């Protein structure tokens, strides 16, 4: 995406002093040659056209902007310009690292970046990787992640990452450059209506044409991204705004809030609704807590545990709710949904009360809504009122922040003696024993001694002492990771749940590793997802980011193959995937790699990768036809799980 070379920088430096912000006053030199392109038609023949008439200020501004685009002259008047405002604002927001890729119109920012050593810039290999990295960073730190790109292709490459952040409610701020404002709408080089593209897939977005607006816009963007239900915010900044001189001050947080009268999230649950909830909980005999991502966003894990203990309600979690409760806690019941544990889904189907908090009854969680939890009354706590009643009708809606609602509920719910629930717990324990014994390969071998994926995931969990950050890709590897790793800590699991973005794990792990350098970071990926974004391996090397990659190679698009086997009568079109020699590939990047094809090679490879100071890769050749069970076929309900297919030892 780069359009400039170093030569131009030096060439422009000489006359840098004479430069002034473009668009401020169209200079005579800009207007004079402007007559040249119009000469063919001649000013006399006035024609209706989108081209501004020669000699007008608009024509001069267009001319000036085109010259700026072509010559990329270096601007070195160290007065404060828009690009400085961006850097200052990032520092004020506590940003220490961001992920970006340069290009023509965002170069004014790169021109001043060197003056802000507090900001660590990671040069990604593709903007999508930058967006996922910002996402991974945000997920493990709870802070706002930042990614940037240039206009046009740079901006569109960010889009998949922004969509991933939207569907999982991740606070990121994506900044793009755009062509000079006078060229907007003229189909200029690398111009695309990125604001129109990101509009339906951000929490909010901005187009900034004036540097004076930048302090307010960036402060608003960070506030919106992290407040209430988090989400991505996109800021598009024209090149001239980045170059324009400005003395606009940065607003205080109070000023930001006052400037957003339409953005007032509700944090505290309504007292009447809280009392109703407490009453429902007191009456329930077979209650279940459904904990989602909102618990992690609100950092409400301690409150959740205290609440579960006081009310003696078992806690099931969604895919993104992993880590909301320590899986070894006696009240933790496990992962629900399409590939969740059978005992969890069974318990939901027989529950008389569901206390759903920070989750949104996604179709992967409910299956067919008509048959979902048929005996249950539902209390639904969410900070986004639009989530309540969207997918499932509920009895007690509570709009509020998970932490604040739990804090308010704790003193008003009646304590329950575990003995009162003895029968219920016994039933749950029995179901659990039954379901955990199936579809698990403790020996490490699937059929014919081939390496079983669930075993590998489990060993990664155990050998890292369950203390690492585990970043999933999408597909079978994601489900194995969710089911068999054994999660103990909040925000230790990173996964693209909503959008299901293949290629997510390696770049997201890059951001996660930078966000939590105190923990080991493992990217768990399949051979399909890995081949989508492995160019970021070089970023890991260049910036020395210690991500351990566990590559599950079944030489297949595993989840596609599984669906084709079970739903499409074994019509395996495009399920077979050719891959390179992944060890040689890693070696070419300068990354040490190990290969494990048998159960007895697994531990050694994991330990070797752990010992590396920097990125490492393990190539696990797993059984090619292993499925993730149980599985809920599309359109079916939680009671219709498929547990075996074909062989007896699935």
């Amino acid at each position, binding site marked *: 995406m780069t359009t400039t070379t170093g030569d131009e920088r030096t060439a422009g430096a000489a006359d840098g002093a004479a430069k002034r912000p473009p668009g401020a006053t169209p200079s005579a030199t800009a207007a004079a040659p402007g007559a040249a392109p119009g000469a063919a038609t001649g000013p006399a023949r006035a024609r209706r056209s989108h081209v501004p008439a020669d000699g007008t200020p608009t024509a001069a501004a267009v001319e000036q902007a085109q010259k700026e685009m072509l010559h990329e002259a270096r601007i070195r008047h160290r007065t404060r310009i828009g690009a400085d405002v961006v850097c200052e604002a990032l520092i004020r927001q506590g940003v220490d690292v961001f992920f970006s890729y340069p290009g023509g119109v965002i170069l004014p920012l790169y021109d001043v970046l060197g003056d802000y050593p507090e900001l660590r810039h990671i040069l990604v290999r593709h903007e999508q990787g930058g967006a996922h990295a910002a996402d991974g960073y945000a997920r493990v730190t709870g802070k706002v992640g930042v990614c940037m790109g240039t206009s046009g292709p740079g901006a569109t490459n960010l889009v998949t990452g922004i969509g991933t952040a939207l569907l999982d409610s991740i606070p990121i701020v994506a900044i793009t450059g755009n062509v000079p404002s006078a060229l907007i709408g003229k189909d200029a080089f690398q111009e695309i209506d990125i*604001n*129109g593209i990101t*509009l*339906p897939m951000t*929490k*909010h977005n901005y*187009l900034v044409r004036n540097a004076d607006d930048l302090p307010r816009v960036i402060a608003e963007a960070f506030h*919106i991204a992290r407040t209430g239900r988090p989400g991505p915010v996109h800021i598009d900044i024209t090149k001239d705004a980045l170059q324009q001189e400005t003395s606009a001050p940065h607003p205080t947080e109070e000023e930001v809030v006052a400037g*957003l*009268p*339409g*953005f007032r*999230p*509700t944090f505290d*649950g*309504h007292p009447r*609704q809280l009392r109703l909830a407490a009453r*429902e909980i007191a*009456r*329930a*005999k*077979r209650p279940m807590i459904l904990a989602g991502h909102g618990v992690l966003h609100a950092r409400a894990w301690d409150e959740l545990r205290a609440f579960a203990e006081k009310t003696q309600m078992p806690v099931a979690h969604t895919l993104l709710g992993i880590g909301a409760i320590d899986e070894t806690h006696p009240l933790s019941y496990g992962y629900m949904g399409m590939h969740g544990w059978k005992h969890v889904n069974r318990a939901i189907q*027989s529950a*008389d*009360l569901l206390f759903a908090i920070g989750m949104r009854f996604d179709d992967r969680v409910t299956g067919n*809504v*008509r*048959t*979902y*939890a*048929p*005996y*249950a*009354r539902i209390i639904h706590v969410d900070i*986004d*009122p*639009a989530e*309540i*009643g*969207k*997918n*499932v*009708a*509920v*009895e*007690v*809606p*509570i*709009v509020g922040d998970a932490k604040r609602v739990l804090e308010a509920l704790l003193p008003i719910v009646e304590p329950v003696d575990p003995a009162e629930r003895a029968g219920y717990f016994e039933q749950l324990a029995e179901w659990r024993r039954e379901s955990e014994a199936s579809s698990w390969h403790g020996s490490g071998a699937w059929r014919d001694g081939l390496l079983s994926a669930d075993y590998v995931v489990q060993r990664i969990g155990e050998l890292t002492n369950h203390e690492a950050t585990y970043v999933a890709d999408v597909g079978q590897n994601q489900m194995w990771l969710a089911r068999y790793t054994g999660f103990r800590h909040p925000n230790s699991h990173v996964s693209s749940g909503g959008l299901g973005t293949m290629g997510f794990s390696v770049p997201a792990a890059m951001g996660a590793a930078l966000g939590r350098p105190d923990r080991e970071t493992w990217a768990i990926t399949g051979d399909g997802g890995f081949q989508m974004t492995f160019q970021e391996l070089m970023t890991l090397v260049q910036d020395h980011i210690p991500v351990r990659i566990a590559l599950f190679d079944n030489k297949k698009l595993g989840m596609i193959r599984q669906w084709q086997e079970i739903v499409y009568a074994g019509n395996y079109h495009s399920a077979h995937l050719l891959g390179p020699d992944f060890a040689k590939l890693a070696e070419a990047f300068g990354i040490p790699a190990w290969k494990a094809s048998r159960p007895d090679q697994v531990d050694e490879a994991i330990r070797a990768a752990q010992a590396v100071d920097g990125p490492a890769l393990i190539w696990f050749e797993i059984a090619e036809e292993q499925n993730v069970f149980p599985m809920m076929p599309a359109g079916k309900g939680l009671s219709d799980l498929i547990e075996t297919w074909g062989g007896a030892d699935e």
Partner: protein
Amino acid sequence: MSADPSTNGQVPGQAPGQAPGVAPAPAHAAPPARAIPGSGQVHRHVLVAIVLNKPGVLNRVASLMRARNFNIESLAVSHTDEPDVSRMTITLYGDDVAVEQAAKQLYRLIDVLKVQDVTAEPTVEHELALVKVRAGERRRGEVIKLVEMYRGRIVDVAADSVIVEAVGTEAEVDALIALLRSFGIKELVRTGSVVMSRGSGSIQEAIRR
């Protein structure tokens, strides 16, 4: 029905399942199906949205309605007496839960200040239509008489046509247009409904508080 988030929303749909505290029914008794939100009785709703007058706000509202699969029947936008505030009147079809969901989704837009479903409230609801009707010298009198009965106006006269301006509720405008059809309609434009609650209450004042 207001979808103000501070009221914690409201209970949509009816209670599925049975009273709490009852053990699951035996397997042979099929449990009642859970209602799917939005599958109820469809009827016409009128929403009033007060929004910040910022570039792109109409695009945001229209984009949201499209993306969330809500079917807008009409959408009228204009300034208010406050220069930075615009007002939208949106008419759409759906069941109560679906329309409440539309209102809640509108609230998620940063530039939206207030959304109110005024369907069940006493309101004044009007729209304006301009209808170019075929009317030569012979039939012009007939058209004029009809238009007067509906308290419309003739705003332009040409040799073989007139432009009729009709103001009223959607149903009144519909009725006049139906009658004019027999003369032959050359051209028709309608603004879509604008609506205001009766009485002294003010949605704009409610925001300022």
